[in-house]
């Protein structure tokens, strides 16, 4: 079959063969890509910000899933990476499908996509565009996210930066794991993590449940099936959570609960509302509600809300500033920090 041996031959054949390297993706495919990647298409949502965290720039990204763009606009990245403002969102649909033929005209050096997009990968191979698959499980699993970060590091020749990022991640996770047995069950606050106004909550199968439990809270919705699952207001009354987190998937704010302005809801009798313990989750270079480069910071944030006594050996603001400085080479202003933490 002709195509099989051409599959290793990337586009832009005029270039020197020695400028190629091999990257092994999560599917175990050995993908030959240019040594120096200058244009990439990225379909998975959090990886725009992860690439920024690794590469320090987004200028190599030529096309993304529209969601990456809308995330970007809502986040600090719009200040940090102004070069990304005009990136194209036309080639990838929100369900990650790519229009391969249209993409050909862009001549990207590599396309980064989820490992489940096998058809897109095959089509890209058929027209000799290198495609690198990331594990979609990274959407709910810290370890897989780290694997993906490693691959991105290799692609961009920034292995060290990727490794550092991952190491920080591991360190923070270990810190919380180590303190697990110091938390008495009865001292854990009852926590509810709400995704949107339809009362979809972080349920048993969610990434956020893992984080909540790791940082010393009880997810009252742990028994609900699924990852984000809708529940009824009566059930929430039944649970009567002490702490409520509001995700950035929805524009609602703690005031909406305090003032009881959401239709069909009645928050007035909920402890978290009575005690004003409703928190909007932070948005850094991306919203923290899903696994991302800033997940360690998210854990720290959660820890100090849920168990301020126990997780007292770090200063959150400082750690955030340091993270931004070390990994993103950016000095957060007081104003930016306050806005990030909704203060």
């Amino acid at each position, binding site marked *: 079959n002709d195509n099989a041996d051409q599959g290793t031959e990337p586009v832009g054949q005029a270039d020197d063969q020695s400028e190629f390297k091999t990257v092994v993706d999560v599917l175990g495919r050995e993908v030959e890509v240019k040594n120096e990647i200058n244009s990439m298409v990225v379909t998975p949502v959090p990886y725009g910000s992860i690439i920024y965290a690794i590469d320090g720039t987004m200028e190599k990204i030529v096309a993304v899933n529209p969601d990456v763009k809308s995330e970007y606009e809502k986040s600090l990245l719009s200040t940090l990476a102004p070069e990304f403002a005009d990136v194209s969102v036309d080639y990838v*649909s929100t369900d990650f499908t790519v229009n391969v033929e249209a993409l050909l005209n862009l001549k990207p050096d590599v396309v980064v996509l989820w490992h489940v997009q096998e058809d897109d990968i095959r089509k890209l191979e058929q027209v000799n565009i290198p495609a690198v698959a990331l594990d979609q499980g990274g959407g709910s699993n810290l370890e897989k996210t780290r694997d993906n970060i490693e691959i991105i590091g290799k692609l961009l020749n920034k292995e060290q930066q990727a490794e550092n990022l991952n190491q920080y991640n591991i360190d923070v996770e270990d810190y919380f794991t180590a303190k697990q047995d110091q938390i008495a069950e009865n001292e854990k606050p009852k926590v509810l993590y709400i995704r949107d106004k339809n009362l979809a909550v972080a349920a048993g199968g969610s990434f956020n449940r893992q984080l909540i439990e790791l940082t010393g809270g009880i997810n009252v*919705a742990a028994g609900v099936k699924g990852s984000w699952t*809708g*529940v009824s*207001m009566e059930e929430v*009354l039944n649970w009567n959570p002490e702490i409520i987190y509001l995700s950035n998937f929805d524009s609602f704010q703690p005031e909406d609960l305090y003032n009881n302005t959401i239709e*069909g809801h009645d928050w*007035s*009798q909920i402890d978290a509302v009575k005690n004003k313990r409703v928190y909007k989750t932070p948005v850094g270079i991306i919203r923290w509600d899903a696994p991302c480069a800033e997940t360690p910071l998210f854990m720290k944030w959660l820890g100090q809300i849920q168990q301020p006594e126990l997780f007292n050996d770090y200063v959150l603001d400082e750690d955030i500033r340091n993270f931004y400085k070390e990994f993103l080479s950016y000095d957060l202003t007081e104003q930016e920090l306050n806005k990030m933490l909704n203060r």
Partner: protein
Amino acid sequence: MKVNNEYRNVFIVISIVFIAGIIISLSVGRYVVSFSEVVRILVSFIFQTEGTQDLVAQGVVLNLRLPRVLGAILVGSSLAISGACYQGVFKNQLVSPDILGVSSGATVGAAIAILLGGDRFMIQIGAFLGGIAAVLLTMMIPKLLKNTSTMLLVLSGIIVGGLMGSIIGIIKFLADPDEQLAEIVYWQMGSLAKVNLPDVLGILPIVVIATVILLSLSWRINILTLGDQEAQLSGVNVKMIRSIVIICATMLTASSVSISGTIGWLGLVIPHLARILIGPDNVKVFPISLLLGSIFLVTIDTLARVLTTAELPLSILTGLIGAPFYFWILSRQRVRL
């Protein structure tokens, strides 16, 4: 007369089930409120007296459950009666209230409102106007083609439905997948979880007026089933009656869809059940459909919030509960269809 007694009996039984359904629905939920407490809360609410001091229970019953029950009654009865009307007007038992595109139009309206970042009230208005606009469009096509056969009207409904489906597709495609797409999908699955008293009061006048008009026309609609020509020669202004019925039924469907999102299936099946119970006479079919539709939706909505910790969308339960139930009725009656 034996036959009329049979109707009266069916009517009485169903009315009792209806009232029992309302009371049960107000009394059960994930948050436990004792039955006596529910009664006390209701009594003090109705007579505006000082009642219980348990504010949570009072909130649950009056703010969470009561609007939903009222919403379910309005939506269920509206869909059932408009289904029955359309089936009469189009002389076809397989016609649903969506036949002229009202649901898909309402979805487009709601989706546009969501896309523009409208609040719940805007979404309701959007849905209502969208539903009506779709039906107007449907009714315009036969006019433009100068052919007023029912067949063409139904075909126009299909054309408009297809068009609306595409527009929904575009909107979903353009929508922000987090907030807006989720909201549109949620809306399409139908839910009474967010219904509050002002919503119910907002559509109440339209629903009551349209229902009364349709109930009064029920006998004329019988005559329409004889066919256009024969109905006309029996002194029925077919075009006028048909227009009134379509307008009222559209108003009903559009208003109910606007507060609950799309709820499939009910408008098609409930009139059928009514007909199995008491024959084809619309004078009887309409009131029975109305009650059955209410009972069905109150039940479904109660189950939606009671069955699991998760709040189930209505479209899930209408099928899951409704299909076997309908099958059971069919098998019990061994009806000749």
